């Protein structure tokens, strides 16, 4: 039985696609057969972050409408044989997503995959609600700033009421908080909400804290999920997050300002 995970946030641009790509690659690296689906119909960009944009032939909407089958639309990752990408349509609108259609595709994928990661679009409209409806688990991506935290709180409300699990009377969606773009320097200066502040307000299980890091942009420039950048703090933080999702109990890292060593102080000032 596959597990369906939605990566959601409400607010745009907080790191959902970055997270979906890293998380899916991380699961694949641990040996799980994983597919990551772009629900951002009309504004697809998961394929860019995954670096497979030139191999897109058919998309999610083509599959829903019966113009192609899933096997034709999925792109096999070149780096990891366990990982597949189902791109979104660039031309259609979100109305092309229907509960029946999406449900059918997910049921078919569930036969073949262990994890199905759904990259949700921003907002609370069709694409976002559709990505949430079928989820077993949700990763609520939040930046430490007012509008992002507020939107996450609203998404948490929607998650608990509008899901297939809720309708079928199953145990609710498991919800996890992922704080991204965290800057310990700015927190120390009192300019950014601290992790505890965000947790105070959202009170969800914390699955990870991803530092604000230039390596994320580098990775997206190159079309490589940042989790593959093993040197970077963001890559390591994503790797920890995958471990925690799979049940490991790891302490959170990169939460405090790194003390500059004597060398750093002498040479970097």
């Amino acid at each position, binding site marked *: 039985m596959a597990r369906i995970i939605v990566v959601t946030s409400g607010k745009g641009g907080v790191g959902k696609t970055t997270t979906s790509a890293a998380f899916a690659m991380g699961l694949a690296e641990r040996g799980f057969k994983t597919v990551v689906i772009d629900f951002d119909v009309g504004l697809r960009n998961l394929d860019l972050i995954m670096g497979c944009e030139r191999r897109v032939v058919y998309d999610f909407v083509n599959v829903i409408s019966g113009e192609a089958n899933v096997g034709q639309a999925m792109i096999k990752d070149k780096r990891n044989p366990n990982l597949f990408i189902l791109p979104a349509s660039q031309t259609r609108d979100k109305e092309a997503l229907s509960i029946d259609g999406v449900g059918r595709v997910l049921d078919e994928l569930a036969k073949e995959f262990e994890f199905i990661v759904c990259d949700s679009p921003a907002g609370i409209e069709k694409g976002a609600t559709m990505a949430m409806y079928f989820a077993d688990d949700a990763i609520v991506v939040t930046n430490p700033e007012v509008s992002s935290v*507020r939107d996450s709180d609203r998404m948490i409300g929607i998650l608990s009421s509008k899901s297939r699990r809720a309708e079928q009377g199953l145990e609710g969606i498991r919800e996890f908080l992922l704080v991204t773009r965290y800057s310990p320097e700015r927190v120390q*200066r*009192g300019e950014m*909400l601290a992790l505890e*502040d965000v947790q*105070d*307000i959202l009170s969800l299980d914390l699955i990870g804290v991803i530092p604000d890091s230039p390596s994320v942009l580098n990775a997206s420039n190159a079309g490589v999920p940042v989790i593959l950048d093993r040197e970077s703090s963001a890559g390591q933080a994503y790797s920890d997050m995958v471990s925690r999702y799979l049940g490991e109990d790891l302490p959170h890292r990169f939460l405090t300002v790194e003390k500059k060593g004597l060398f750093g102080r002498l040479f970097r000032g």
Partner: protein
Amino acid sequence: MALLDYFRQRKTTGSAAIAKERLQILVAHDRRGGGPSYLPQLKNDLLKVIRKYVAVDNDAVSVNLERDGAQEILELNIVLPD
């Protein structure tokens, strides 16, 4: 001493504290919800009834729903002209 003050000041005047305070208020408000969807209609109907007797402005009636634990309090405020 002056140095200590400097650090202390930085800590308390940072905008993060304001952000948290605003968020707590916002989120509490969001969680209460906007009240039942019939509230605007109720307000309109009340205005019509009152206007049978006195001429009042559109903003003479305010309808508010407060939730306090399991209790719901519907608060009606009607301002009559002098």
